[in-house]
């Protein structure tokens, strides 16, 4: 059994989606009337069941999304707990630090500072309970704003946010700056 081109396209979109994708948006992308989208979604979901895939395609919160199959929960849990995620990566720690110092802050603002897409990392931090949605921006789009949680403070052994080291203190002093500048000078090959 091979997927129809429409079901393939829907699957590809779901693979890169971070949040459930509403059928209306899928219809727009595929340039089809929304009522014609439904059968292709069903085909896709069915193909995952029949093929015994490790994930399923489900309707959640008015949209479609890919999620791991419940039977695979033990592996996913182990993956989440060992190996790559047993410590925060430098990227995740930097993202957490931005939220800590700039809260409340939107994903887009974090991405602008980090220079990369941060959706996955924000999700990880939110999932682990270190950050949480704390309102919405007033501007167009009303982006979700994130803030650190009580759990974040607890884990760091702090009572209040203002106990975080002031960042000005960490800025390099004039001597360190001069040294840095010196290092940036070309060596003999420059």
């Amino acid at each position, binding site marked *: 059994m091979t997927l129809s081109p429409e079901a393939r396209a829907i699957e590809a979109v779901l*693979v890169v*989606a971070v949040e459930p994708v509403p059928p209306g948006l899928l219809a727009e992308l595929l340039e089809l009337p929304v009522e014609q989208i439904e059968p292709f979604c069903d085909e896709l979901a069915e193909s995952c069941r029949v093929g015994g895939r490790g994930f399923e395609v489900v309707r959640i919160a008015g949209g479609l999304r890919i999620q791991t199959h419940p039977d695979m929960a033990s592996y996913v849990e182990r993956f989440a707990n060992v190996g790559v995620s047993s410590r925060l990566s430098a990227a995740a720690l*930097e993202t957490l*630090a931005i939220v*800590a110092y700039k809260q409340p802050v939107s994903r887009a603002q974090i991405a602008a500072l980090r220079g990369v897409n941060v959706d996955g990392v924000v999700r990880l931090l939110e*999932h682990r309970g270190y950050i949480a949605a704390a309102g919405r921006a007033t501007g167009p789009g009303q982006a979700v704003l994130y803030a650190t949680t009580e759990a974040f403070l607890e884990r*760091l052994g702090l009572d209040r946010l203002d106990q975080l080291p002031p960042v000005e203190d*960490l800025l390099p002093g004039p001597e360190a700056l001069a040294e840095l500048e010196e290092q940036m*000078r070309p060596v*003999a090959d420059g």
Partner: protein
Amino acid sequence: MTATVSTPVYEGPIEVLLQLVNSHQVDIYDVPLLAVVDAFVAEIANWDSVDLPTLSEFLVIAAVLVELKSRRLLPGSGDVDPDEELVGWEERDLLLARLLECQAYAAAADGFSLLLEQAARAVPRTAGLDDDFVVNAPDLLEGVTPDQVAEAFLRATAERPVPTVDLYHVTVDTVTVADAVSELALRLPSAGRATFRQLTRHLTSRIEIIVRFLALLELCKQGRVSLDQGHTFGDLEVTWVPGAPTTVSVGASQFDEYEG
């Protein structure tokens, strides 16, 4: 590379010209380099803004063309002594090796461009863990201190380098002729006689050596040293004129400052 050239034997992009010359389809001997340069300058005149990569690319290609052409214009082996001919062949081999290497990397660059384009068509999944997935996760922040969070913030918000024309190769040392004059006036009377090479041996940057040379000319003008050069490009001998004043009587402002 968009610049095109028009010569009696060839019309088209200059990059292609180099390829043609390399593959022997156009004889570099028949290509007036002036026409190449003129065409490029005319091209530049039409630019809205300066395109530095294209400019430097042109210079590289033009340099290779000049080098190729100068080799074609050189007299044949009958006119040169065997040693010089050998040197010529050595240089020729080096140039050949370099051209080959450049061609290989240009080919690799084309391959990279293709790979990049292909790879960009496939987007990786980065959604991460499902929201409703319950994990009894160990504390990822274990061992992380508030200071480390602050450091991470500074790392994350550190200004990223903006691609600019790099001026680091320009030395920021300011060297003055006046300084060099006073230094030489102290050193030379006791040394009596020294070569320019000896006087500049401890110096590493070109500008310092140049300033030292200007200082010597200044001292010579004032009649405090005599300069002697046995033959062209030979060692420059510096002799302190006995009895000449060792103090710098003139104000430093009289000398130019040089900033590399």
